[in-house]
């Protein structure tokens, strides 16, 4: 389900407060769940669409929690949780059309959900049964990229290709605040800018790069950096799914219409650990966490739905039940994932026959077979 690009013009019961926000931080929904106006960005969805965004966020949070639980139970070697970033991912994810193409990091489980990628696909790499595990072209959702920043260049190149071929759609490249320090990201900005490539750089500034806070990466707000490369940058409240949707839609439309790249900085927070091997108590204060918990993207959307009478108890219950079902399904399919055959490491390394590979495949195959039945 992709929400309509133009907005369906349905009625919204909640009153908009005018001018309540800081224009440098696009916000359409306050932490209390009230709609507010912004001079440049607006959103007007049907009640069903509003409920859809809430549903997405709840399901994504649940999928993520299931990833963490599976890791704790030894079913995954590692998990990179997104707790707190649901609005940034669902908002930007639902802003994409079928023609758009997304290049994720290793944490875009919510974007994957919006692109209709089977959540079980995301687990293979973390379980250690594959190093990618899906066909990126099936849903226009590229493989997860672990090396920080690399994918921003791939996204730019892909956008250059789309542009040459006159293809519909734009590209969206995800990266973190820490990644903004990498040469690759800055090179991607240069290439995108000089080629006027249809790419949106979507930075989820979750305040931390493992243990390093924003101050260790930059002194100028990220969205302002775009100006130096010659394209627009905007900062959006990353815990506000409506603002994330509106801003990303506009940015993708800007790119699709031949206006070149745009940088969106979603100002958000990583409420959990960086990954399941990380211990945030070593570097982060409990107060900071509390402060951000009050801005929880899901609670905010729920408050809006309640205040505006766009949803009732039955709906919330239904979504929670659906989340339980999705989680149970993922769990069952995760534990059913079998280990690859060792010989499969020789598969797909080259497109054409490779004599060394063939020789080693035969040698190792014979060696491994000699153990069969031995234990």
């Amino acid at each position, binding site marked *: 389900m992709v929400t309509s690009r133009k907005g369906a013009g349905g009625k919204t019961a909640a009153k908009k407060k005018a001018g309540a926000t800081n224009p440098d931080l696009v916000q359409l929904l306050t932490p209390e769940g009230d709609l507010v106006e912004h001079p440049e960005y607006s959103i007007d969805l049907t009640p069903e669409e509003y409920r859809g965004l809430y549903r997405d966020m709840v399901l994504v949070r649940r999928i993520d929690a299931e990833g963490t639980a599976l890791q704790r139970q030894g079913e995954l*070697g*590692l998990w990179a949780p997104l707790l707190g970033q649901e609005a940034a991912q669902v908002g930007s994810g639902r802003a994409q059309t079928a023609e758009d193409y997304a290049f994720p990091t*290793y944490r875009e489980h919510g974007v994957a959900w919006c692109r209709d990628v089977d959540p079980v696909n995301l687990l*293979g*790499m*973390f*379980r*250690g*049964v*594959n*190093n990618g595990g899906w066909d990126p072209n099936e849903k226009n959702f590229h493989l997860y990229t*672990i*090396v*920080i920043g690399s994918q921003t260049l791939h996204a730019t190149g892909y956008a250059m290709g789309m542009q040459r071929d006159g293809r519909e759609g734009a590209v969206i490249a995800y990266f973190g605040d*820490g*990644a903004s*320090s*990498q*040469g*690759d990201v800055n090179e991607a900005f240069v290439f995108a800018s000089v080629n006027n490539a249809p790419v949106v750089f979507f930075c989820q500034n979750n305040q931390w*790069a*493992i*243990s*390093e806070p924003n101050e*260790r*990466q*930059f002194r100028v707000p990220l969205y302002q950096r775009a100006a130096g490369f010659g394209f627009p940058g905007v900062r959006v409240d990353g815990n506000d799914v409506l603002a994330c949707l509106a801003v990303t839609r506009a940015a993708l439309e800007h790119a699709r219409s031949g206006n070149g790249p745009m940088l969106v900085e979603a100002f958000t927070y990583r409420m959990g650990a960086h990954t399941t*091997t990380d*211990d945030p108590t*070593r*570097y982060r204060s409990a107060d900071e966490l509390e402060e951000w918990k009050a801005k929880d993207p899901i609670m905010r959307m729920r408050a809006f739905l309640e205040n505006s009478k766009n949803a009732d108890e039955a709906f919330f219950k239904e979504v929670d039940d659906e989340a339980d079902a999705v989680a149970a399904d993922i769990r069952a399919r995760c534990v059913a994932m079998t*280990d*690859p*055959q*060792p010989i*499969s*490491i*020789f598969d797909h*390394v080259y497109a054409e026959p490779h004599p*060394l*590979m063939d020789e*080693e495949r035969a040698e*190792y195959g014979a*060696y*491994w077979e000699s*153990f069969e039945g031995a234990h």
Partner: protein
Amino acid sequence: MSESTTKTQQISLSKGINLGLRRALEDDPKVLLMGEDIGKLGGVFRVTDGLQKDFGEARVVDTPLAESGIVGTAVGLALAGYRPVVEIQFDGFVYPAFDQIVTQVAKMRARALGKVSMPIVIRIPFGGGIGAVEHHSESPEAYFAMTAGLRVVAASNPVEAYWMIQQAIASDDPVIFFEPKRRYWDKAELDPTATPYPLYASRVVRPGTDATLVAYGPMVKTCLEAAAAAADEGRSLEVIDLRTLSPLDLEPVYASVRKTGRLITVHEASVFLGMGAEIAAKVTEKCFYSLEAPVLRVGAPHTPYPPSRVEEEFLPDLDRVLDAVDRAFAF
């Protein structure tokens, strides 16, 4: 000297490096550490744990997330008289810095007619066996050993790690310092008042008479286990810890092969163009008439590092080493 550097104690390999870094920071005010997450977090493996607390943020520097930046600025700091020790978080993340290392760090002294030096240590946790996701288990040592101007060493146990890191920091040449991450938690007794073995020398770690195993880093332990198993079957294997990959110290290997007549090289990196290939060629040249069998190599196949669920099959283990020993005896 602080108490921590005079008392005999049980230490892990990561602690060995930690204590070695601590001692280097104490001894020389020009030594500084740089890397991602090395401060409050103490590094993702806690190798630098507590050092920022004791030496301050100016000596133990959390850098931006940019490996080319880390190594490139270390070059400048070295030119300005400092001795930077940089941490690359994982083997697979050294590549953004590869350009700086091979085009700048390695060649600076020669280009400056010896007028400047590059006393930089680049610490890289390397190798697999810890169940990690991709890019976290690689063995990139041959890329660096192939580049003239760099020195490349690999520690294999806690005591060696303690001494070697200090010697690397004291070296006026750039040193790529490989730490076997699957051995970080191994323990041994450290006597900090002992006299260390020279840095750029390989070392016989188990004497034997029937065949020689040469390894470095994580595979030294595997070879020692293989030698112990072989002893039960009546075969005496000599094990050599290479320790230094560039320069390669092969004299002890030649001496060993002249005695045993059989050589097996063992590393996690791919056999194709790995360190073992160079050793095999050299030993064939120098010990041709002593060899009872061709030099055999044990290592990884020429494939990308596999998903962790099959890494135990991919990585050399005791069986693979003993299998090669059997083959050497079959000639």
